[in-house]
């Protein structure tokens, strides 16, 4: 039919124009970043609208970091991922959804903010918990998620291991230390947010091993006056990374938007929002402004103590690896 043929290009034009007019982005992130990205999304949408005239819709999805990475590999169409550890994004890269050199595409190894692992204890610190050694004492109940499913928990585990290896001088001693620690863990939640519920809402445990940002958030927002933060003598430098899932972004025709979204995290405005949500900013000026929030602590990096995620992950968290052995010994 002639009329139909004439109308066809018009229809196609409308189909193409519709997504351009209402760009949308899915950010697949880990558990404790909900509130941070809610605020950042609003700020970025306004920023993008000022720049381009279009207001994007940004959706977010949260869960255990490893679980989220698997979901993306299995087909969850994330345009960007903002996960707890580089290993999880490596898994997405290995599935061919983004380039293997993704960590070189943004500053600071694609980690726009950092954090560390601290202890959240009940008001007055009734069990007098001061450092890692206190966590392995009999009768201390420790709350941490499962390192097999939670990126945050892997940081907890490695922080404890790094401390023990340094203090007691051997890997065997570190393993013994971490085994004792996990014997004191009554429940293994799958994600950091679930563990927070266990500790704060359900009132279980004496100490919660938490992301620093999560601990500050909890002590100030969820249970004001009910909790205290204890910063251990030494902890790990946690560098949550971000990346554009290029294959998906390309399919959605929003690569530029996705890249701009992640670059916004490095701007003073993005860094300010990160700091407001208790992530340690990379920009010195912003870090100096919020210095009072973050306790000084000696930090070691995963590269320094474990040779990076590519070595740490299979050695500690692979099937049948050290964490599985520890769990088996403790049960």
């Amino acid at each position, binding site marked *: 039919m002639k009329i139909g043929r004439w109308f066809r290009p018009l229809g196609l034009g409308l189909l193409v124009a519709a997504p351009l007019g209402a760009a949308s982005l899915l950010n697949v992130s880990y558990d404790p970043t909900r509130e941070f990205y809610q605020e950042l999304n609003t700020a970025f949408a306004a920023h993008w609208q000022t720049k381009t005239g279009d207001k994007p819709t940004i959706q977010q999805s949260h869960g255990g970091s490893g679980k989220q990475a698997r979901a993306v590999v299995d087909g969850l169409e994330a345009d960007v991922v903002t996960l707890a550890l580089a290993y999880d994004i490596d898994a997405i890269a290995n599935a061919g959804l983004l380039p293997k050199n993704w960590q070189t595409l943004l500053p600071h190894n694609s980690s726009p903010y950092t954090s560390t692992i601290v202890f959240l204890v009940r008001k007055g610190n009734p069990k007098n918990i001061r450092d890692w050694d206190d966590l392995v004492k009999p009768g201390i*109940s420790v709350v941490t998620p499962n390192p097999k499913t939670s990126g945050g928990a892997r940081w907890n585990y490695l922080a404890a291991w790094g401390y023990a290896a340094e203090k007691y001088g051997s890997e065997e001693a570190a393993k013994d230390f971490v085994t004792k620690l996990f014997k004191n863990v*009554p*429940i293994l939640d799958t994600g950091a947010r679930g563990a927070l519920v266990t500790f704060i809402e*359900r009132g*279980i445990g004496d100490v919660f091993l938490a992301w620093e940002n999560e601990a500050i958030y909890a002590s100030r927002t969820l249970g004001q006056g009910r909790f205290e933060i204890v910063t251990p003598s030494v902890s790990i430098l946690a560098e949550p990374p971000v990346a554009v899932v290029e294959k998906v972004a390309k399919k959605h025709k929003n690569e530029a938007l996705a890249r701009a979204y992640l670059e916004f995290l490095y701007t003073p405005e993005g860094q300010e929002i990160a700091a407001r949500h208790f992530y340690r900013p990379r920009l010195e000026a912003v870090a100096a402004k919020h210095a009072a929030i973050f306790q000084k602590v000696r930090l070691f990096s995963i590269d320094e103590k474990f040779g990076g995620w590519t070595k740490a992950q299979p050695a500690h968290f692979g099937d049948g690896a050290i964490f599985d052995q520890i769990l088996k010994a403790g049960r």
Partner: protein
Amino acid sequence: MKVQPWLAMAGALVLGPVAPVFAQEDSPPPSTEQKVEELDQKVRILERRAELAEEKAAEAAKTAGTLTAGKDGFSLRSADGAFQLKIRGYVQADGRFFLDDTDRPASDTFLLRRVRPIVEGTLWKNFDFRIMTDFGGGTSSVQDAYLEARFSPKFKLRAGKFKGPVGLERLQSGADLLFVERALPTNLVPNRDLGVQLSGDLASGAVQWTAGLFNGVVDGGSTDGDTTDDKEIAARLFFQPWITQTAGPWKGLGFGLAATSGDNTGAIAAPALPTYRSNAQQSIFTYRSDATAAGTTIADGARERLSPQLSWYSGPFGLMAEAVTSRQEVRRGDTRADLEHRSWQVSGSWVFGGTASYKGATVKTPFDPANGTWGAFELAVRFGQLSLDDDTFPIFANPASAVSEVSAFTVGFNWVLNKNVRFVLDYEQSSFEGGAARGDRPDEKALLSRFQVSF
């Protein structure tokens, strides 16, 4: 050192209250408050574990498949519905009794008319399959075995063995029939054939189109293969202009046209020509065949069919009408003819306690005598005729054994207990022209009954 048990017990009784004091040197005994706190923690831990187990189960349920059993059969379904397996089937236990058949006796019999287990399903959301076998009548056969790719509602591709898209009543499932047996026009349309078919619904189902290429079968016949290169095309257009309306008397009105065209060539051993049956399933027409070239009629050339059809269902009222012409070039020895047989039928029904539909009467309140509900009752009547081409006789068929025309009427009573169970009782009467050595074949009067379970 061995301690006598009685001494140990006495010591324990005496020292019992003191022992914790010694123990206090290393760690003081827990206070009542501490014990309560410890117990409280244990309870909280158990509660939280139960909560996490529930969350895990709920999460697993989102991705777990479901197993369902109900009036539509039994099914397995993946969480996203992309994979499904359905087990269905139906059994028809019939009775067939002939009245006043002294002049031309016919066997009164109970029989299993259809025993059909059905396995059907979906793979990867858009690919369906169906396998239906039949063990009725003491034989076994594959009735349906096909795959269908649903590219869109407007465009589907099916391949395998299935009903050719021609006869209106033939396309109705054997479990949904208004009467025990289909009407006379079904004699002239293909039953199941092997081939490929394209189909789709346009305008939200207001227009249904079907076109296919098949091996080609004789009138009323089925096939499991082809020994010739002859093939047949079949097509059907069916309109239901008011189907998208939510209600209204015309919503259930449909009409259409179906046709086939192809070549059909038989041989002395396999003439490739049909036998026609009365509504009571008695053979009433066959072509001449004596295993010699001179005495056997064979198909030899074009075969074409045309079938206008109409159905209308509105509340308790149902109407079905169809006509078929079937043209076939035949040859006996050197004598050729182009024969055209015709048939038509009109049936009407009224459902008490339910609604009429192409898929059988539906019941408002299923049979449950304890609550005073009895299902639905359906009254039905049908008229039909089959006329053989005059040129058929006497060369191609023997007028002393093959009828030249049959007129039939049927009165039916159906008790539909629920979606799965029904009783059917029909009175069939057919009158014939020809088909006897002298005059006409005697009228055929029969009572047909059915007890059907389908799921």
